C-alpha cells in the first residue's frame, strides 16, 4: 500500500479551519505568543478494522518520526512509519509491539487502536551513532571529545549557510561572521594556535576533505555536523587536524521512505542599528565654527529644509530580500535508495548592491549491488554568485566612506556626475556612486563528486574505497568608472582548484564476550592543483563595455600561475571496549606532505581512555546520576598550513614600466629564503571530560577541560630590514590554548502535547603566546596605511592579536587629547604603547530552546559573549579631524566636545595641534553582548487537515535584540582584513566598517507530499 496516499479512514483528523485562522493571526502577533489559543476539534476515530492497529509515533518534542519501526514482538510482522509518523499494522489488539527508532529509547507496548506513541528523545542518546573520521561509533563508545549538532537543532530556522548553524550551538566553537551575504567567516575550534597562517578548521563532507569550506552546501541537506575537538578525535586527521575538524554528514535516501518536499522561505533584512551622525545643517554649522563663512545663510536654509545634503547611511542602505526554495525527492527500497535535491537561494543585503545567489543540486545514490558490495555515488554541484562590496578594514570600506562623507554633499550634481566630498572624506569616492556603478562580482562553481565502494569481505570485516573530487572555479570581475573614481578600471580573474582524494579503509569490527574491538586501517592520497589567470586594465576608451572588453583598456596587466601540493597518509585506529565499562581508543597517522622539502613526514599519535562509570554495578544502585562517563585523552596533531613552494626561496617577479604604460618584467631574489629544514607544526592536546545525566536522564551534562600546546609553530621569522627585510618560515612559536567547554541539555517538560527542550553551551577560552623563539614580536598590519599604524601585536605572554595601543588619558585643560607617557620621553612615542586587551571573547554562550505544544513549535536561541574588545575605528574617524576624514560627522563629537559640555570627551572643532590617535584606548570598547539571535514560531498542518499534504508554516526573526554597551553597529562583527595582509587572528577585532548587524524577518513554508 502506498503510504503516502490519502487515507480518509485514518484517525485524528482535525478540522483545518480554526488552526489556519489561528496560524495567520499568530503570525501577525508573534510577540504575544500564547495570548491566542486555537481550538482544536478533535474527531473520534472512525471505522478501524478489527485486525489492524494504527497510530502515530513522535519524538519527545512532538515531532512525528519518519521511518520508526513497529514490530510485532517475536515475529517478522512489522512496518515503519510514514512521513507523518503514522503507521498501520495488521495485528490483533493486545499483541506486544516493539517500537524502535535509531538513537531513541525503544518501547514495548500492547497494541491498541489509535495509538499515540512517544519515543523518549535523547534519553538513550548514547546509542546514537556518531560519525568520527574514517568510521562511526556509538556515542556510548566514544572516548574522545566530539560534539554533535543534529539538524534538528536548527530546524525551521532560516539559515542560509551551514557556518551560521555552528555559532553558539556547539561548545568550544566560536564563529565570527563578516555578516556579508555569502561573505567570509572565521570559525575557530578551541582557539587559534597558529600565528601566521589560517586557523580555520578542516572541513570533511562525507569523508572527503573540502577545500571550498562549506560554501555551496545547503543547510537543509545536512543530516548532522560533528565537530572533532580533542586530539583523540582530530589526530586521525594528523597534519591537518590541529585546528579541529568539522565533519558534515549529508542526508541520503532511506529504505521504504518515499518523500517529496518543497520548502520556501521569504525574508526581509534591515540594518538593526545606525550611527548617530550630524545632519547637513548641524554639520554646516559646526564646519562654519571651524572654518568661518564656508556655508552662507542660503546654504544653511537649504540644509535645514532638506533641499540639499544627504543622509549617507540611509543612501547606501536598502531592505534586503531573501528567497530560498528547495525541492527534495527521496525514495528507496531496502537495496537502493536515492536522495535528490535542488535549491535556489537569492539574497540581497541591507547595503545596496550586496547580493548573493546560490543554485545547487545534490544527488545521492546508495545501492547494495551484491551481498558483498555496497556502492554510494554522491554529487553536489553549485553555482554561487556574489557581488562584492568593500566591507574590509580599509578606507575604501563602503560604510566607512558613508559614515565620513559630509552630509552637506549631494549624491549627484546637475550633470549626472557623482559629487565628491570637499569637506570631510576628501580622498574617497562617492559611496552611492561606488555602489551604483563600480563594483565586482565573484562567480564560484563548486562540484563535489564521490564514489564509495564498500566490500563486505567477511562478517565484521569490510573494505571501503572512497574516491572523490573537490573542484571549484572562481571567476572574479570588477569595474570602476571615471564618473566616480579617478581612473576607469576593469579586471577579470579566474582561479581553478581541483583536489582529488582517494581513501581506502579496511575496518574490522569484532566482539568476543565482554570484549569488542573496532580496528581501522586507512591508506589515503590527496593531490590538489590550482591554476589561475588574470587580466586587468586601466583607462577604458569607452566605459559602456563594463568589465567585458580588455581590448579597450589603455594599459593592461596580466598574470597567470600554477600551484600544486600532495599529501600521502597512512592511518590506523583501534577502539576497544571492555564490558561497556572501559574504553580505549588509539590512533596513529603518518602524513607525508609535498610542502616540506626535507622533513616531509610527520607522525601523529593519540590515545584516549574512558570509563563508563554509569555501567558499573555500584552506580546502578543509585538513581541520582545516570550515564556517567569519564574521558581522558592526549595526542599530537599537526599543521602544514604553508603554501606550496614556500620553502624553496623562489625568485620574485617585479615589473617596472620606466614611467610608461607597459611593465618590463623583472626578477630578484625576493624577501623569502629557502628553508629546506622546515617541518610540521605540532599541537599537543590534552583533554579530560565528564558526561553524566540526572533526573532520569532528563538533565544531561557534558564538560571538558582542554589544553592545547602548539609547538614548533610555523612562524614567519622577520629578517632585519638592513639585510633587505622580509621573513622566512621557521618552526618557532609556542602557543597555549586552554579552556573549558560544556554542554547542558535538559528535557524540561515532556508531556503528550507539551514539551520543552533546552540546551546551553558555553566555552571559556584562554589563548596565550608562550614563546616566539628570538623574535621580539609580530606586528599586526595597519588597517589603513597613512591614517593609522598597526594596532595589534603578537608577543610572549599575550594572546594572539592583542591590542597594542596608546593609553588615552582624557582631554587636558585646553581641550587636547592626552596619552600616558609610559616611556617618559616627554612626547607621544612608540614606547608609550601598551597591551590593552584582546579581540576574542573569554566566555561565549549559546542557549537554544525548543518548546512544542500540539502543532506549535517555538524556538528561542540566545547567544552571548564576554571578554572581547573592539577597536572602533568608525567612531575614531567620524569623531576626529585627520587627513582622510578631515572634519567630524559623529553627533557626539560635536555636542560632547570641549566647550560644548561640562564633561567633554572630544576636542573642539576649532582645535589645532591636537594629536588624534586611532591606535588608542579612547576608541577601544568592550564588546560584551547578550543577544536573542533567533526566534521561530512554526505551526504544522497535517495532511489530514489540509487533505493533500502536511504544511509547516514558520515565522522567524533573527537578531531580535542585542544587549550591549558597544557603540558600533555589531559587537560581534569585525572588519576582515584582506587575507594577503596576514592572518585574521593577528589583525583581529578591528571595526572599520564591519557589515552592519541586520534584523531579518523570514516566513517559511514547507510541504511534505
Amino acid at each position, binding site marked *: 500500500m502506498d503510504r503516502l496516499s490519502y487515507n480518509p479512514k485514518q484517525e485524528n483528523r482535525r478540522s483545518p479551519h480554526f488552526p489556519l485562522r489561528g496560524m495567520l493571526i499568530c503570525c501577525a502577533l508573534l510577540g504575544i505568543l500564547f495570548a491566542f489559543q486555537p481550538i482544536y476539534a478533535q474527531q473520534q476515530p472512525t471505522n478501524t478494522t478489527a485486525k489492524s492497529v494504527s497510530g502515530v509515533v513522535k519524538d519527545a518534542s512532538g515531532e512525528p518520526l519518519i521511518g520508526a519501526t513497529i514490530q510485532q514482538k517475536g515475529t517478522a510482522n512489522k512496518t515503519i512509519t510514514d512521513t507523518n509518523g503514522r503507521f498501520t499494522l495488521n495485528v490483533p489488539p493486545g499483541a506486544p509491539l516493539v517500537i524502535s527508532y535509531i538513537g531513541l529509547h525503544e518501547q514495548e507496548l500492547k497494541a491498541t487502536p489509535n495509538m499515540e506513541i512517544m519515543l523518549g528523545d535523547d534519553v538513550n542518546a548514547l546509542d546514537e551513532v556518531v560519525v568520527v573520521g574514517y568510521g562511526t561509533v556509538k556515542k556510548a563508545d566514544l572516548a574522545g571529545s566530539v560534539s554533535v549538532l543534529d539538524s534538528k537543532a536548527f530546524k525551521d530556522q532560516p539559515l542560509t549557510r551551514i557556518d551560521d548553524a555552528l555559532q553558539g550551538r556547539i561548545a568550544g566553537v566560536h564563529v565570527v561572521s563578516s555578516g556579508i551575504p555569502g561573505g567570509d567567516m572565521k570559525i575557530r575550534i578551541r582557539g587559534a594556535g597558529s600565528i601566521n597562517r589560517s586557523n580555520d578548521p578542516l572541513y570533511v563532507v562525507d569523508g572527503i576533505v573540502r577545500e571550498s569550506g562549506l560554501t555551496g552546501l545547503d543547510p537543509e541537506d545536512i543530516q548532522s555536523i560533528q565537530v572533532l575537538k580533542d586530539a583523540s578525535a582530530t589526530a586521525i586527521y594528523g597534519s591537518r587536524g590541529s585546528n579541529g575538524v568539522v565533519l558534515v554528514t549529508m542526508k541520503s535516501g532511506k529504505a521504504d521512505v518515499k518523500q517529496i518536499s518543497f520548502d520556501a522561505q521569504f525574508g526581509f533584512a534591515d540594518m538593526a542599528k545606525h550611527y548617530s551622525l550630524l545632519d547637513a545643517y548641524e554639520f554646516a554649522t559646526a564646519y562654519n565654527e571651524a572654518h568661518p563663512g564656508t556655508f552662507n545663510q542660503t546654504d544653511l536654509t537649504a540644509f535645514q529644509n532638506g533641499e540639499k545634503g544627504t543622509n549617507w547611511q540611509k543612501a547606501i542602505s536598502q531592505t534586503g530580500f531573501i528567497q530560498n526554495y528547495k525541492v527534495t525527492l527521496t525514495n528507496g527500497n531496502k537495496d537502493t535508495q536515492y536522495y535528490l535535491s535542488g535549491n535556489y537561494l537569492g539574497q540581497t543585503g541591507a547595503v545596496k548592491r550586496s547580493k548573493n545567489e546560490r543554485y545547487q543540486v545534490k544527488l545521492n545514490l546508495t545501492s547494495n549491488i551484491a551481498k558483498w558490495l555496497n556502492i554510494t555515488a554522491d554529487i553536489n554541484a553549485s553555482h554561487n554568485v556574489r557581488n562584492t562590496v568593500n566591507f574590509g578594514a580599509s578606507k575604501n570600506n563602503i560604510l566607512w566612506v558613508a559614515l565620513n562623507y559630509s552630509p552637506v554633499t549631494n549624491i549627484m550634481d546637475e550633470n549626472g556626475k557623482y559629487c*565628491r566630498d*570637499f569637506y570631510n572624506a*576628501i*580622498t574617497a569616492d562617492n559611496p552611492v556612486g561606488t555602489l551604483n556603478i563600480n563594483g565586482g562580482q565573484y562567480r564560484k562553481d563548486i562540484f563535489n563528486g564521490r564514489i564509495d*565502494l564498500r566490500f563486505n569481505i567477511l562478517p565484521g570485516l569490510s573494505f571501503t*574505497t572512497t574516491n572523490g573530487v573537490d573542484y571549484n572555479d572562481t571567476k572574479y570581475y570588477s569595474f570602476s568608472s571615471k564618473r566616480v573614481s*579617478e*581612473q576607469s578600471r576593469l579586471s577579470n580573474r579566474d582561479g581553478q582548484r581541483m583536489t582529488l582524494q*582517494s581513501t581506502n579503509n579496511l575496518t574490522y569490527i569484532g566482539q568476543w564476550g565482554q570484549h569488542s574491538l573496532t580496528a581501522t586501517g586507512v*591508506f589515503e*592520497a590527496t593531490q590538489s592543483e590550482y591554476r589561475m589567470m588574470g587580466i586587468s586594465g*586601466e*583607462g577604458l576608451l569607452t566605459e559602456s563595455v563594463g568589465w567585458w572588453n580588455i581590448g579597450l583598456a589603455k594599459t593592461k596587466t596580466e598574470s597567470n600561475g600554477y600551484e*600544486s*601540493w*600532495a599529501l*600521502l597518509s597512512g592511518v590506523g585506529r583501534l577502539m576497544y571496549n571492555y564490558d561497556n565499562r572501559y574504553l580505549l581508543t588509539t590512533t596513529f597517522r603518518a602524513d*607525508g*606532505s*609535498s*610542502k616540506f622539502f626535507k622533513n*616531509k613526514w610527520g607522525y601523529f599519535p593519540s590515545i584516549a581512555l574512558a570509563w563508563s562509570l554509569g555501567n558499573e554495578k555500584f552506580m546502578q544502585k543509585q538513581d541520582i546520576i545516570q550515564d556517567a562517563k569519564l574521558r581522558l585523552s592526549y595526542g599530537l596533531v599537526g599543521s602544514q598550513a604553508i603554501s606550496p*613552494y614556500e620553502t*624553496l*626561496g*623562489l*625568485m620574485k617577479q*617585479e615589473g*617596472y*614600466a*620606466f*614611467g*610608461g604604460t607597459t611593465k*618590463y*618584467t*623583472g*626578477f*630578484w*631574489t625576493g624577501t623569502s629564503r629557502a628553508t629546506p629544514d622546515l617541518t610540521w607544526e605540532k599541537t599537543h592536546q590534552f583533554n579530560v571530560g565528564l558526561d553524566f545525566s540526572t533526573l532520569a536522564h532528563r538533565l544531561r551534562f557534558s564538560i571538558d577541560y582542554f589544553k592545547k600546546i602548539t609547538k614548533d609553530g610555523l612562524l614567519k621569522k*622577520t*629578517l*632585519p*630590514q*638592513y*639585510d*633587505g*627585510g622580509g621573513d622566512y618560515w621557521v618552526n618557532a612559536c609556542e602557543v597555549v590554548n586552554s579552556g573549558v567547554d560544556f554542554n547542558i541539555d535538559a528535557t524540561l517538560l515532556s508531556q503528550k502535547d507539551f514539551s520543552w527542550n533546552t540546551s546551553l553551551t558555553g566555552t571559556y577560552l584562554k589563548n596565550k603566546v608562550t614563546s616566539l623563539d628570538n623574535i*621580539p614580536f609580530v*606586528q599586526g598590519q595597519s588597517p589603513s596605511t597613512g*591614517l593609522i*599604524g598597526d594596532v595589534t601585536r603578537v608577543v610572549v605572554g599575550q594572546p594572539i592579536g592583542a591590542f597594542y595601543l596608546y593609553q588615552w588619558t582624557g582631554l587636558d585643560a585646553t581641550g587636547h587629547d592626552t596619552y600616558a607617557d609610559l616611556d617618559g620621553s616627554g*612626547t607621544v*612615542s*612608540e*614606547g608609550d604603547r601598551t597591551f590593552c586587551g584582546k579581540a576574542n571573547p573569554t566566555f561565549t554562550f549559546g542557549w537554544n530552546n525548543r518548546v512544542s505544544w500540539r502543532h506549535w513549535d517555538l524556538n528561542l536561541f540566545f547567544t552571548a559573549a564576554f571578554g572581547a574588545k573592539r577597536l572602533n575605528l568608525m567612531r575614531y574617524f567620524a569623531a576626529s579631524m585627520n*587627513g582622510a576624514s*578631515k572634519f567630524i560627522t559623529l553627533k557626539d563629537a560635536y555636542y560632547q566636545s570641549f566647550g560644548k559640555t561640562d564633561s567633554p570627551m572630544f576636542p573642539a572643532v576649532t582645535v*589645532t*595641534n591636537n594629536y588624534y*590617535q586611532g591606535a588608542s584606548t579612547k576608541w577601544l570598547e568592550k564588546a560584551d553582548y547578550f543577544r536573542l539571535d533567533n526566534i521561530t514560531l512554526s505551526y504544522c498542518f497535517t495532511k489530514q487537515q489540509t487533505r493533500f499534504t502536511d504544511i509547516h508554516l514558520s515565522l522567524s526573526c533573527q537578531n531580535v535584540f542585542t544587549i550591549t554597551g558597544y557603540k558600533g553597529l555589531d559587537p560581534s562583527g569585525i572588519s576582515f582584513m584582506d587575507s594577503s595582509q596576514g592572518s585574521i587572528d593577528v589583525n583581529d577585532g578591528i571595526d572599520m566598517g564591519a557589515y552592519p548587524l541586520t534584523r531579518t524577518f523570514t516566513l517559511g513554508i514547507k510541504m511534505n507530499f
Partner: protein
Amino acid sequence: MKLLSILFSALLLTVTMTSCSDFLTEKPKGKLTPDNYFTSQEELDMAVYALYSKVCATQASSYPMLIAWQGDDITTNPGSNKQNFADIDAFHPSDGNNGAVWAWRTSYVVIKVANDIINRAGKTPTTEEEKNIAIGQARYWRAVNYFFLVKRFGSVPMNLVGDIDYNRPLASVEEVYAQIVADLNACITMLPTKYTDEPRFISGANIYVTKQAAQATLAAVDMAMAGWPLQKAERYADAAALTKAIIDGVQAGTYEYILESDFKNVYAPSHNYTNETVVGINFSGTFKWDEDSELSKSNLFESLGGWGDGWGELLFWKDFPSGPRKDAIYNPKILKNNGRKGETELLDWWEVEERHPMFSIFTVGPDNVDYDYTKPAGYVSSNSHRHRLIRYSEVLLWYAEAQCRAEGAPNTLAYQCINRVRQRAGLSPLPAGMNASDFIEACIQEHGWEVAGYIPALVTRRDDLMRLNRLEQVFYQRKQNTPITVVPNVTLKETLLIPDNVTWQGEKTIYLPYPALDKQLNRQLKR
C-alpha cells in the same frame, strides 16, 4: 575470488598512482630559482628592471623622504594626519616614525637587489660592456642608497654580500662614505655616456645612469664629505673637478644637459623628460599605488581638497627673492576653494585657512596638464612626475661653491655658473669681486632656492643645512618662533612648535632614530 581480485587491483592502482617517488616532490611550474639565474642577457636585463622597480619604491610616497621636513623651507599642518611629518619637522621623531621606517626599509631593499647583481651577474654569458652596464647600475644605486642612509641615520649597518646577520655591527660614517666613493668611482669607469634604446633611453633622456650622472653624484657626495660630520675639506677640490668635467662635457656637446630657459618648465609635466635632469627616477601614473609618484596632491592644501603635507615656511618664503622661480615654486595666489563651485577669486595665501605659503611644485592641472594657479588644480593623487634627483642647475652651483672653497676665491666660471642660475630665476648677476665667504653663502642660498620644497632631491635644503652644521640654528629659530611680518600688516608665527621638553642633542637630534623593529632584532643598533 572475484571480490579479492577487485580489491587487490583497486589497492594496486592507488599505490602505483601515488608511490612514484616524486609524488611528494614539488615542481614549481612557472617560477624561477636564484641558483639557475643569470644565464642570458635577458635575465641580466630583468635583474636590472627589478632593481629599478625597487629604486622607484624609495620615493613613491613621501614617507621615505620625510627627513626633508627638518629643513627650514618646509613645514606641515600641526594637526590632521601629519604626525609623522610634524615630528620630524619639530626634531623629535620616534623610532616608529614612518619617515625613519620607510627610508630605512626601501633603501636597504635596493641595496639587497644591487648586491645580488654586483656579486652574481658577472657569470652571465654576454659582453663585458653589457655586464658593466648592469653592474654599473647596481653599484650606482647601492651608492646612492647608502648616501641616503648615511645622511639620514649616520652610522648604519653595511651589507655588501647579501647575507643575513642578526648581529651586524654599525659601519662608521667614514666607512660608509668610503664605500659610496668606491662604488661611484667604479661607475665612472664602467658606464657609457649615452644609451639609445628603451628603456635605457626614453623621450630623449638617458634613463639608465651614465658616466656623467655618476660624476655629478660623486660631486654631491664629495660636498657632503667636505662638510659636517666628516669635514674633509679636501673633497671640495674633487667636487670642483668632477663638476667642471661635466660642464666641459656639456659645452663640448658630449653631455646632454641643459638649463631650461623658463623655470616654470623645470618641474612641469610637459617637460617631464627634460635634460636639465641629470639623475632621475621614472614614475608611471598608470600603475596606481605601485609605480606612481604620489606627490601630486601633497602640496595642495587640505582646505582646497589636497593632502597639504608640505607647507612653505614663513621666513624662507619671505627671504625668497621674487621672480619666475618663486612663482613656479609657490602659488603666487590661491584660487578660492580651488574653484570647486566656479569661484574665480584669487586670494593671498594668508587669506587661506592654512595661513602658510603653498608650494606648487607637484601640483598639476586637471588630467595632469601643467598647473596654472588661476585655474583649479586637478585632484589626481598620483602621476608620472619624474623625480629630478640632480638637476644641471645644481651641478653649476656645486661647481661654483666647490671651486671657490677649494681655491679660496671664485673664478670666472664660478661666477658664470651661479649667474646663469640666478638669471633664469629673474635675479641680477652677482657683483664681481665678492669675497669668498659671501660668494659661498650666495651659492648655498641659491641652491636652497633651487631645490626649495623639492623633497626628492638628492641634496635637499635640509642636507645643505646638515652639511653646514646649521640644523641647530633651525631648531632654535623654531623654538623662539619670532613673529614674522610676511607683508605689511600681516604678522604670523609658525604653527608647528617644538615641544618644551624637546632639547637639542646634537647628532641624536639630527639623525633619524633607528627603526624600532630592527633595533629589537639587533641590539647593536644604538647611538
